[in-house]
Each structure stands twice: as structure tokens, then as C-alpha cells.
């Protein structure tokens, strides 16, 4: 039964002998499979036994606890199929407007959802490491844009230097394409924050089916 699932990868994962991508595959499988999760747990207990014999016990620095506590407050768990916060908030706000007939409420709700997404992005930027790349334009009229790539959790923050671009951010992954959402207009820019997308190493800005620009994780 074991060989039908993860086979020897169970022990290799527990040993830390797999490459990162292989390890991520084992983790993803274990999340869905109770049997492999139990086998993995048994292998991990052996590693813990080895660690108990070979790793000198040290006190953790107090500042590490404070840092983890601060970060834990801003990390949003990844859902199986992540809805776009700004888009759904705007939709909810739009329905509310229709119900009560107060047209001004919609803009306020949009602003609030955008501010909330940006606030989450700024908090992630403040507490984690990240790199950034500029989108490479595929067409001359593409807006200037940049993406910040968080390192663990692998959040993305796309900043488009235009509010006139009605474009989507599309992730290119080994499993195929995935629409991550539409950058929300804010002042002179439009932004999109995606809390955790570990499998995404390349994104495109698209207007309909037209690829405007591309960015890759360094």
C-alpha cells in the first residue's frame, strides 16, 4: 500500500534528503492522505530520536519569540481555492448598495477592501524577507509594473504604475495557468496582494487574452 503512495520518499523526506520541490510534493500528498501521513510521522519520530541523541539543547533567543508572535498575527492561511479579496469584497459591497440604494457606499467599501489588502501586504513586507522584479513588457503600451516576491510564506505583491490598466495577474505554474486577480486601483497605482502561492514562480499581466508583461521570481 505504501508503494502506491509515496514509497521511499517518506523516509527521504524525514531525513531531509529530498530536494525542495520533491519535499513540497511529499508535504502536499501527506496533507491529503492519512495513511502516508501516519507513515511519515513514524519516520519523523526516528529523526526526532536521532536529534534527541545528537543535538545539544539550547535556549531560544527571546527576540525570536517576539518576531514569530508579530508575524503570526498577519499571516493569512491559504485556502484550497483562494477567492480574490478585493474582487469579492467589491461584489459584496455592490450587492449591499443595490439592496439599500445608497450608491456612495460602494466606493467606500472598495476603498476599505483595498486598504485592508494593502495593509496586509505592508505587514508581510515588514516582517519577512522578499525580492522584487520589474515586469518585462511584451507590448509597448503595457504599464510599468513590479512584483515583490515573499520568501516563506511565498506571498506576492503586484504594483502597477497605472490605474487605467484593466488587467489581470495570471500565474504560470507546472499545473497550468491560474488567475490570481485584478490589481485594485489606489491613488496613482493599482495593487494586488496574494497571501501565499509557493508554486508560483512566474506571473503575467494580461488584458483579456493579451499578455502585456511578464515577471519571474529571481
Amino acid at each position, binding site marked *: 500500500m505504501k508503494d502506491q503512495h509515496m514509497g*521511499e520518499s*517518506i*523516509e*527521504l*523526506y*524525514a*531525513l*531531509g*534528503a*529530498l*530536494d525542495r520541490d520533491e*519535499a513540497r510534493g511529499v508535504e502536499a500528498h*501527506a*496533507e*491529503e492522505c*492519512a*495513511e502516508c*501521513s*501516519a507513515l511519515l*510521522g*513514524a*519516520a*519523523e*519520530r*526516528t*529523526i*526526532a*530520536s*536521532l*536529534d*534527541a*541523541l*545528537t*543535538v*545539544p*539543547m*539550547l*535556549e*531560544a*533567543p527571546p*527576540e*525570536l*519569540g517576539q*518576531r*514569530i*508572535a508579530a*508575524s*503570526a*498575527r498577519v*499571516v*493569512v*492561511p*491559504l*485556502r484550497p481555492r483562494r477567492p480574490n479579496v478585493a474582487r469579492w469584497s467589491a461584489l459584496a459591497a455592490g450587492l449591499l448598495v443595490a439592496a439599500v440604494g445608497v450608491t456612495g457606499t460602494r466606493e467606500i467599501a472598495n476603498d476599505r477592501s483595498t486598504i485592508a489588502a494593502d495593509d496586509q501586504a505592508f505587514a508581510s513586507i515588514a516582517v519577512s*524577507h522578499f525580492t522584487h522584479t520589474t515586469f518585462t513588457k511584451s507590448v509597448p503600451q503595457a504599464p510599468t509594473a513590479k512584483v515583490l516576491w515573499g520568501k*516563506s*510564506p*511565498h506571498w506576492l505583491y503586484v504594483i502597477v504604475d497605472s490605474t487605467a490598466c484593466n488587467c489581470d495577474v495570471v500565474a504560470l505554474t507546472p499545473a497550468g495557468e491560474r488567475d490570481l486577480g485584478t490589481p485594485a486601483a489606489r491613488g496613482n497605482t493599482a495593487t494586488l496582494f496574494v497571501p*501565499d502561492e*509557493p508554486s508560483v514562480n512566474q506571473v503575467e499581466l494580461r488584458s483579456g487574452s493579451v499578455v502585456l508583461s511578464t515577471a519571474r521570481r529571481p
Partner: protein
Amino acid sequence: MTDDELASKFVARRPEALEEAYRAYAPALYSVARHVLGNDADAQDCVHDALLRIWSRPGAYRPERGSLRTFLSVCVRNEAIGRKREAARHFHIEQRLAISEPEQPYEIEIADPVDRARLTGALAALPGEQRQALELAYFRYLSHTQIAEKLGVPLGTIKSRLAMGLRKLQHALPAQSAATL
């Protein structure tokens, strides 16, 4: 709070569960990262990032996996090993490690003579080729592909040696050792 209660809160994703888990297991998690990476700053980054990555994935831990403590400890260890390999690649050390290191057993540094005898006895009971592969993976942090290259053995063979060796150790090492870290 018991380990089981803490694990239940972690599975239920109670907002305070990550902090509480860290507080409960901080010495073990930090010690593992520090042992692999060899310095405080990298160890802190490693523990922080590993825990946050786990916390951002709701299904990462499930009760069938066993104790939350062991799960978190292995996750931190794997993150530390990944970082160590990445740094080695960056500084071109990996190649030197693979080529120039002598083919001698890892010198196990354990102060307690009883613990030392327990581990060396368990390792000595393994077939030599399984013990050699395990030592390169566990003590040297080499990946299966690196071990295969270093020993000049097919990758599939190395995978089998590692898996078989660890399964045998699973029975040879007393489970209560894990509770002390």
C-alpha cells in the same frame, strides 16, 4: 496545556496556537536549526520562516502525523537543511564537499556515554552501505542525488538504502529518546 490539547488547537487553527506551539517547543526547534546552520542569525530566520510557512497552510499538520512537536521539529530541520544546501551552492562549496571529503565515518559528538553507545550500536547494526548512506544524509545533510554522485551508485539504489536504513533504525532506537529534545 498538554501536547494533545496544543495539537488540537493547532489543527483547529486557533489564532493563538502558533505562538503557543512555539513557546512550548522553542528550545527544541531553535536547537535543531542552530545545529544544522551553525549560527544564531540563520537559525532564527529558519525557525521563523519554517513556522510561518506551516501556519499559512491549513492542512500542513494532521493528527495522524504524530506529535506536533516532532512534526514541527522535522519541518524546521528540513528548512535548515534546504538553506544550508542553498548557501553551499551559492558559494560553490557543494562541489568541494562532494569531491574532497574523505570516505570516513562521521565523528559522532555525544557527551553522554550511554547515549553515544545507544546510537553507535544502532548504526553499527545496519549493513555498511545503508549506514554509510544514512550518515551522509543525516550528519552531512547531503541530498539523495548528492549521495549517489559522491558514492558513484545509482540514485534508485541510494533511495532504497536510505529508506531501508531508516526503517531499521526506527526499530532499533528507543522511542522515548524523542521526548527529551
